[in-house]
């Protein structure tokens, strides 16, 4: 349980970090919060020859809210996301999801850029990013580029990040619906969720669902947004019948992996249950129940 030897680099600027990552290519790994990479190093599941420590790039630990965007710097820790008033005002769904990551101590170190680059299919922040249509800002040798979170996340722990590139920020479009919920099921508190649901919508003057966003984690190799379920719910009352119909349709729309530990049918049932819980939590929160 000790990491293989590596050369340690501690760049003082983003430019320096990018130069180091380009120079050492696939032999280099960026180190942010280290809450996922650390265990992988200790267990020697990862053996990079070079470790580029990003923790001095404090300019990437940032939150900026404009009229149409919440921009989160890549080095922003989960604990800050979970507690920042500007996140609670503009995108409480993101704050609630961040507050549920791992454990209190883990959240003090873990970063949003690290979570997205790591791309665990059960992780919270990739799910929120995909569901809300977030854009990643990536810096590299040829300047910076932007990519939709859904395109960035390609498969289990596989992302569109090339040699010498770093995520520098995640942009969440605003505004989003004022009703929201993050619901997850895991076997132990703080474990990775077997299935998770992110939900966001509003109700118009007649109480009908508008701006519906629904995403699921843990049911595929990447978090999924479900546009066909969103379309199905659009314009309907968020009543018992609608919620039940959308939950069943969600369970039918997904094709989770079948394993001995977690059968596909179990994940389907969890998805159905969690969609119901998410809608009820969102409505109850608004009604102060």
């Amino acid at each position, binding site marked *: *349980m*000790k*990491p*293989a*030897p*590596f*050369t*340690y*680099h*501690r*760049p*003082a600027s983003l430019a*320096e970090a990018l*130069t*180091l990552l380009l120079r050492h290519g696939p032999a280099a790994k960026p*180190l942010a919060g*280290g*809450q996922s990479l*650390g*265990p992988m*190093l*200790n*267990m020697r599941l990862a053996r990079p020859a*070079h*470790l580029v*420590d990003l*923790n001095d790039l404090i300019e990437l630990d940032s939150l900026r809210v404009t009229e149409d965007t919440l921009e989160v710097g890549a080095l922003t820790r989960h*604990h800050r996301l979970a507690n920042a008033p500007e996140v609670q005002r503009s995108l409480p769904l993101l704050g609630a999801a961040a507050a549920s990551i*791992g*454990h*209190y*101590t*883990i959240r*003090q*170190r873990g970063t949003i850029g690290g979570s997205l680059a790591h791309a665990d299919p059960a992780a919270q922040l990739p799910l929120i990013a995909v569901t809300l249509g977030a854009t990643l800002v990536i810096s590299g040798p040829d300047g910076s580029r932007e990519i939709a979170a859904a395109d960035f996340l390609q498969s289990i722990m596989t992302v569109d990040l090339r040699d010498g590139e770093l995520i520098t920020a995640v942009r969440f479009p605003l505004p989003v619906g004022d009703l929201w919920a993050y619901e997850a099921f895991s076997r*132990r*508190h*703080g474990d990775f969720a077997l299935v998770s649901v992110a939900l966001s919508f509003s109700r118009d003057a007649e109480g009908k669902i508008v701006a519906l966003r629904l995403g699921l984690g843990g049911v595929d190799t990447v978090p999924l947004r479900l546009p066909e379920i969103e379309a199905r719910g659009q314009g309907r009352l968020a009543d018992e019948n609608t919620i039940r119909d959308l939950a069943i349709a969600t369970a039918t729309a997904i094709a989770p992996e079948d394993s001995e530990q977690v059968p596909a049918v179990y994940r389907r049932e969890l998805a159905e249950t969690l969609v119901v819980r998410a809608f009820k939590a969102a409505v109850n929160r608004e009604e102060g129940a």
Partner: protein
Amino acid sequence: MSAPTQDPLTLSLSVNGETHEVRVPARKLLSDVLRDDIGLTGTHVGCEHGVCGACTILIDGRPARACLTFAVQMEGHEVTTIEAVGRPDTLSALQQALHEEHGLQCGFCTPGIVVTFEHYLRENTNPTAEDVRDVLSGNLCRCTGYQNIVVAVLKAAARMRGELA
């Protein structure tokens, strides 16, 4: 451009307000450097992959797993370990409450729990039992069943607020 560091490195680390010079390889975990090179064995090593919480220390005042941190990363940062909390004859409010409420048995997990909640209770002076359980989920204890730890943390919080003698 900072020069790449060659092993072994000579590091100057600030731990509990004292500066220590150590010569260690870059891959050496902070938990091992604290114990082997600095002699502070209160930081316990359980799982070595961030799950059990026994190695929890403070980095610049915030809790972190020492087993997921390399000592080389701590240059320029302040590390606080369990040795900085209370003294055998004057326990901290949290230590005293754990003692009174039987919040420990074998004691292996206790340093991590104390360090975590010494910070947490400063950030959250009036937690509910549910809040305490949420935070405590990051520390594994195989003796107590956690119940007495929750009781002790709530008692310490009440004392720190001046509501309980």
